[in-house]
């Protein structure tokens, strides 16, 4: 088990290390094309559908609480 863990960690280290770069020549160009001033905008637009779905699922999960709070606030208001 210990040998397996050491082997796994070594493989992981090799993968994330510089030797794992698939293309040493194009890598800087790829990195430059990813980390542009548009990076945050790209990330936000990419995550927008996932965020909308998470909000929707949270709304369904907490629907009784939301409904109760809404009903109590309207009855008191």
């Amino acid at each position, binding site marked *: 088990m210990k040998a397996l863990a050491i082997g796994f960690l070594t493989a992981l280290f090799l993968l994330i290390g510089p030797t794992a770069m698939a*293309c040493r020549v194009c890598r800087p160009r*790829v990195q430059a*094309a990813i980390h542009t001033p548009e990076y945050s905008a790209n990330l936000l637009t*990419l995550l927008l559908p*996932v965020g909308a*779905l998470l909000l*929707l*699922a*949270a709304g*369904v999960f907490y629907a009784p609480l939301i409904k109760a709070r809404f009903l109590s606030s309207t009855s008191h208001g």
Partner: protein
Amino acid sequence: MAEQLHRGPLISAGLLIGAGLGGFVDGIVLHQILQWHNMLSAKMPPDNLVAAKVNMYWDGMFHAAVWVMTAIGLTVLWRVGHRRDVPWSGRTFFGALLLGWGLFNVIEGIIDHNLLGLHHVYEYTDNKLPWDLAFLALGVLQLVAGWAFVRAGRSDTAVRGEYSRGNTQ
């Protein structure tokens, strides 16, 4: 007095897992196997190695996001399984999975394909709209089918413990 039943938590878990798995189907089948599009393929067509690898990066971010959504869904499902007020209905859960997948297709289709134009379902044609509309239509069909299953599950009232005991008798 009998405890009030709540179906929302199981539907919520199904929505998240269904949407996550739907995202994986999109990424694995349409991005990687068929290679019809990538995450930013309308903005940066993958017609050279650098552009292809940049798209690969954003595909990876997309996969990471849907992985998180699936993991949250599994966590919710695990917690729901312990609740005595949530009916453990296969029809409700399957319907919620379909609803989640359909919602993913409709929301992702409207936002990414139609509004933002990040990519289209099939990039290698001049007329991309029919493919995008077909994707939306598939999503709507999944929503209708999912809703029908969730409605059918309204008559299921056994919670998880009762369901297990019923199976062992």
